[in-house]
Structure formats: structure tokens, C-alpha cells
């Protein structure tokens, strides 16, 4: 690559001046253009973006004990317990789906080229597991309060 050609490779094509001579590709507007450095730059940016996107999801589990718990009456306690049970069972199902998908991605990791993308898309946030388990513990707390208040089941 000629020194004066660096802009030719790294700036957007619309900003480039017409260049004739050797090169691999001819763009629709008639530019004679070597795309290899641009492709490398694009792949580098894509890889960096992929790595940046690998951070775990932010998971916020329900707090086991919450302010105002003691003031809940029997009906409110029963209602919350029932809702939490439903949500927890839903989370358990979703967690199993995520685990199965992760396993499939790991198996697919042997595929050349695609494998790396599959591994990178693995979900290790444990979102559903954490929120599901937190709800089970929350219910344990609420049941304790219900028992203490002598609520009928």
C-alpha cells in the first residue's frame, strides 16, 4: 500500500477520490478498489462489538424480606404467595430452555466459523434461575409470616 493511499482504504468510500490502477475490486461507481484492509477493519470492529456484547444481563432478584412485610394481612400474603409460585414455576421452565439452548450451542461450537458465534451467544447470566430461586425464598418468608399470623391456608 502506498503511503498516500491510507485514506483510500480506511475512510468511507464516498469520501474517496477516484483511483485507477491495480486492485481487486471495481465498485459500482467505477472505483478500482482493494477491499481487503476494509474487510479486516470491519471484522475487527465486529469482533470488538461482539466482545462488548458478551457482558451478562443485569439480574435483579426479588428481596427475601421487604419493608412492610409485617403489615400484610392474610389475604395479601396468600395472594403474593400464589403469584410468586406461578412466576417461579415459569422461571424454572424458562431456565431449563436456556440450559438446553446453551448445550446445543456448545455442541454446535465444533462447526468451523459458525462455532465461535454460537459459543459467544451462550447465556451465562442465569437470569431465570436466580429470579426463580429468589421467589422460592421469598415465599418461604411470606409463609413464615402467614403461619405467625395464624392465617388459614
Amino acid at each position, binding site marked *: 500500500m502506498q503511503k498516500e493511499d491510507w485514506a483510500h482504504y480506511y475512510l468511507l468510500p464516498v469520501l474517496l477520490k477516484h483511483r485507477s490502477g491495480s486492485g481487486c475490486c471495481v465498485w459500482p461507481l467505477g472505483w478500482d478498489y482493494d477491499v481487503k484492509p476494509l474487510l479486516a477493519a470491519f471484522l475487527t470492529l465486529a469482533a470488538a462489538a461482539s466482545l462488548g456484547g458478551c457482558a451478562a444481563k443485569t439480574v435483579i432478584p426479588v428481596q427475601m424480606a421487604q419493608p412492610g412485610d409485617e403489615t400484610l394481612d392474610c389475604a395479601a400474603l396468600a395472594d403474593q404467595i400464589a403469584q410468586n409460585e406461578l412466576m417461579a414455576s415459569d422461571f424454572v421452565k424458562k431456565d431449563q430452555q436456556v440450559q438446553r439452548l446453551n448445550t446445543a450451542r456448545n455442541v454446535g461450537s465444533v462447526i468451523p466459523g459458525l462455532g465461535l458465534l454460537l459459543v459467544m451467544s451462550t447465556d451465562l447470566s442465569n437470569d431465570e434461575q436466580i429470579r426463580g430461586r429468589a421467589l422460592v425464598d421469598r415465599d418461604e418468608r411470606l409463609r*413464615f409470616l402467614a403461619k405467625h399470623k395464624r392465617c388459614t391456608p
Partner: protein
Amino acid sequence: MIRKETIRNAGRAVLVTAALAQLAACATAAKPEAMVATTTAAQAPFPQTLQHAMCVRAVTGGQKTNALWVSKVDDQSFNIALSQSLSNAGLAAPSPGCSFPVDVNLLGLSQPIAGFDMTVTSHVNYKVFDPSGQPLVLATIDTPYTADFSAAFVATERLRLANEGSIRTNISQFLDKLRQADVKVAAAPAAAASGN
């Protein structure tokens, strides 16, 4: 004189080797000694009643590490780390004199699959019971910890360090909760548990 092509090839070889090193290293489990929380004399004291009166009764929810996959924290390692932390803080009871047992549910670790800086967040439920079996402290603690690239070159090592740092911080925050615990309140069962 070294040719440019030779230098370029050497550079490529280094990069490929580095990439393979990132991918090929086996995952190792979090080390208990690296998860022990330290306390300093400058920190607030613990309630008198809790001193030399606590023990870890049960730890659940941990996961064994698969060497071919990612680093995890298992129940036994967490138990050792928490017991040692309680001991260092002067809270551990001489066996069998435990009045305030602690049950721990390791809800899970939120981990990244890759990255230069790896942030792991641990989510843990701690349940401390008083001598009558009433809950004294019920705390859900979430603590993120980032292990940056300078901490370890190999990704699996970096993830393990992030796991350990996150659990260490988590236990440290639990000890802070114990410092604030109103042990007298535990006598009234309905208002026994203090959340966060």
C-alpha cells in the same frame, strides 16, 4: 536484516497463540481462601450477642466447575469461605455452641461469556436464625466485581478471579448487615427479620 514478511508472520503466530491460549485453558473452581472477607479494626463492631455464637448450617445452590466449561462456585467452597470469614470477624462459635446458625442459598452467578474486563455478579440469600429459630436477618445481597485484563491474561483465569472477588464482596456486605443487626428485636418473632 530481518525481512518485513518475517516480522509480520511472527506477529501473526503470536496472535494466534494468544487466541488459542484464551480458548484452550481449562476452567478451575473458585478457591475458598480467595473468597474470605477481611475485617479491619476500623470497622464498626458486631453486636455482642453474635460474637462467638454463629456458624454456617447449610449452603445450597452452588455449582461444581466443569473443567471444559466455565469457573463456578460450589457449596463447599462457599461454606469454607463464609466460615473462615465469620471466624476472622470473631463471630464463629466453638463447636457445638452455635446459637445463631446461618443458612445460605447461592441464587446464582451472572457471568459474561467473554470480554477483556469480566464482571461477575453474585446473588446470595443469607438467613440468620436466633436461638429460638426465628429469623434474625434475611438478606438478599447482589455484588458485582470486575476482573480486568491486567488481573489475568487467560480468560478462564480472569473469570475465576471475578467469581472470587464477587463472592468476597458479597460476604463482606453480609458482615456489614450483621453489624447493623438489632439482636434484641429478634425476641419479637413477627418483626424478627430485617431485610435490606
